[in-house]
């Protein structure tokens, strides 16, 4: 009861700040007569958003599915390669340079190239961009987590003649789990961002990014902002879903 009250109490200041910001924004647009192509008022954006909920929703489904595919593939690859790198020192050393490069590479910039490699009428390129964006933080954090195994646990597994597979399953992965979740949590919103931006560079019709560019090109700025609002909400859903899964998993196992 007290905890629930505490959580509600913690939500009040940011909500208040949000409301105040929106009011100031609305007042500024009215007072200074700001044109919609510069900055539409919150009520105009909200109006467009609610008037176009079916299209915002259908486009969110397209982008959301691409992000989800990217999140799964990127997470799976990131964890698997991190395990391999933690077992084979040479792969670790070889991959560290590649990963450093991938960290500074603007992955969405690969989108036009990938549209060329795969069919521009398919979602594959967008999903690949999201996968790549997800892979990097998951790999880096997982590898760090796999290195946290305590010497006493390593001795214990050796003393009990555990196989490599058993050691990974029983000690190494559970030790790394909080780190893996940190990586996936960072990656979750990156997946949405990457999937949205990848749509700017081409590919089939459909998706929030494509809708933003289309609406902006048609000078319908409040509608473009309504799609931006949709992207924000989609990113938030991804982030909160992973955060919830993380909290639930770690609480269920007592750490």
């Amino acid at each position, binding site marked *: 009861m007290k905890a629930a009250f505490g959580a509600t109490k913690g939500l009040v200041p940011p909500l208040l700040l949000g409301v105040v910001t929106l009011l100031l924004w609305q007042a500024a647009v009215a007072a200074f007569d700001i044109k919609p192509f510069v900055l539409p008022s919150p009520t105009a954006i909200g109006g467009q958003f609610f008037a176009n909920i079916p299209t915002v929703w259908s486009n969110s489904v397209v982008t959301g599915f691409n992000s989800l595919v990217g999140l799964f593939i990127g997470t799976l690859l990131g964890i698997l390669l991190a395990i391999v790198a933690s077992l084979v020192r040479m792969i670790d050393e070889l991959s560290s340079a590649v990963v450093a490069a991938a960290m500074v590479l603007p992955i969405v910039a690969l989108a036009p190239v990938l549209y060329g490699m795969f069919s521009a009428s398919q979602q594959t390129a967008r999903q690949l961009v999201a996968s790549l964006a997800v892979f990097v933080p998951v790999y880096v954090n997982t590898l760090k987590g796999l290195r946290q195994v*305590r010497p*006493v*646990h390593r*001795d*214990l*597994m*050796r*003393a*009990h*003649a*555990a196989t490599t597979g*058993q050691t990974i399953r*029983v*000690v190494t992965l*559970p030790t790394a*789990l909080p780190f893996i979740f940190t990586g996936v949590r960072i990656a979750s919103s990156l997946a949405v961002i990457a999937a949205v931006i990848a749509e700017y560079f081409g590919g089939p019709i459909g998706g929030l990014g494509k809708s933003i560019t289309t609406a902006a090109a048609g000078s319908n700025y409040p509608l473009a902002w309504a799609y931006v609002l949709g992207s924000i909400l989609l990113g938030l859903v991804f982030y909160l879903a992973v955060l919830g899964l993380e909290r639930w998993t770690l609480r269920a*196992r*007592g*750490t």
Partner: protein
Amino acid sequence: MTDEDEKNMTSEPTTTPAVVALNVGKVFPGKKGARVTALEEINLTVARGEFVALIGPSGCGKSTLMRLIADLDQPTSGELTVFGKTAKQARLDQEYGIAFQQAGLLPWRTVRQNIELPLELHNVGKSARTTRSSELLSLVGLTDFGDNFPDQLSGGMQQRVAIARSLAESPNLLLMDEPFGALDEMTREHMQGELAHICSETNAAVVFVTHSIPEAVFLSHRVVVLSPRPGRIRAIVNVGLGGSSERTDHLRESESFFSAVSEVREHLHGTTDAVPLGVDNR
């Protein structure tokens, strides 16, 4: 040799000692080619069912010796056998149970799951695991805590879980590296009493590393005193305070206990060496 004797030798390996060390030495490679001799000319036999304590100042290699027996490290010279096998084979055959100074429990597993870990690793069925872990929980007096996570337990209780885990597969040899080192005095004496009780029940041989003289004397049949750098056996004291079952708190007040403590202490402090550091007289 009669036929019967020969039969005894082949079909009754119970005469094989638990641990035999012949001229065992361990040299660690140090920085810039410097070599650190941790152990030298260690000759030691631990009989079945015997409780042997290794005592010595910090850095005398007593933990290293235990790690060699456990095959967590390998000797650089000499020969080491555990139940007549190489240390590695004995480890692969799970001839020993082990407890470390840190309890080393897996924090994401319940107390019961931690105790069952060795059984799980060796594919023991679920019902057999549950039966065994229930036995062990009651043996170490933690029946009500099976579903708790280690973080919810005190240090002494965690150490008891670690001891229960080391007993899971009813090993004939227990290796213990200062298992009570991090406990307060009262918990420590209580745990020593419990360990003596457990040993009398299981009849396992024990190699017990400690730097507490009374602890070594209270628990052991023999106390092996090691000297530091290089680690050598300086003396072996036969304590002989009776069977494990007679090790109660009364023993701590007895004359024979005090004389054994003084004898170990004299050997520890040596005649020519300065007073060794790192020995506490708890």
